[in-house]
C-alpha cells in the first residue's frame, strides 16, 4: 500500500478515501430516510457507483489491478437490480 509514501499521490489517495467515505455516508442517510421506495432505489444505485469508485482508488493504492474485475461485475449487477426494482414498482401500482 502506498498510503505512507509521503508523496503527493499518497496524500491525494488518503484525502480521496476520506471524501468517498463521507459520500457513502450521505447516500446511506438517504437510504434510511428516503420517504418513498424509488428514493431508496436511487440511493442504492448511487452507493454501488461509489463502491466502484472506492475499488478504483484501492486498486491504485495497492498497486494491483486485480480488483477491477469485481468493479465490472458490481456495475452490471447494480444496473440489473435497479431495472428490476423499477419494473416491480411500476407493476405494484400506487401505494
Amino acid at each position, binding site marked *: 500500500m502506498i498510503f505512507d509514501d509521503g508523496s503527493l499521490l499518497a496524500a491525494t489517495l488518503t484525502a480521496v478515501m476520506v471524501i468517498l467515505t463521507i459520500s457513502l455516508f450521505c447516500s446511506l442517510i438517504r437510504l434510511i430516510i428516503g420517504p418513498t421506495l424509488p428514493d431508496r432505489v436511487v440511493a442504492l444505485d448511487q452507493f454501488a457507483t461509489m463502491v466502484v469508485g472506492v475499488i478504483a482508488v484501492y486498486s491504485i493504492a495497492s498497486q494491483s*489491478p486485480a480488483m477491477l474485475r469485481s468493479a465490472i461485475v458490481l456495475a452490471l449487477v447494480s444496473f440489473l437490480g435497479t431495472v428490476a426494482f423499477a419494473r416491480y*414498482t411500476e407493476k405494484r401500482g400506487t401505494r
Partner: protein
Amino acid sequence: MREILTVALLLIGTMFMLVGAIGILRMPDLLSRMQATTKSMTLGAVGLLLAVAVHFDQVGVTFRTVLVIAFYFLTAPIAAHMIGRAAYFTGVPLWSGTLFDELSGKYDPSAHTLDSFEPVSSDDSSAAADTPETP
C-alpha cells in the same frame, strides 16, 4: 507527469462524487435527486476509472476501465429513465415549487401509456393474419 495526471483525475472524480452525494441529500424531490445520481456520479466514476487507467499504463487495465466507462454511459440513462417513469406513474409527490407538469393530463393511468401511443393491432382481420404493420 503521469503522477500529476493521476492526481488531477482523482481529484476531479472525487469532487463530482461529493457533489452527487450532497445533491442526493439536499434535493427536494425524487426526480431532482435522480439528476444528482446519474449525471454527477457517472462523471465521478469516469474520472476515478480514468485515473486508474493512467496510473497503471497497461493494455489490459486500460481496456477494462474503458469497458466499465462505456457500460456506465450505456446503462445509467436506461436505469434513470425506468425509475423516473415508474416513480411518476405510481404517483410520487413532486416538489411544491414545480412550475408546471407537462405530462399531467396526457397519460392513461391504468395502462401507463401516453395518449399519443397507438399499439400496432389488426382491426378486423382474422387471427391467422397477425403480422404487425409498421406505420
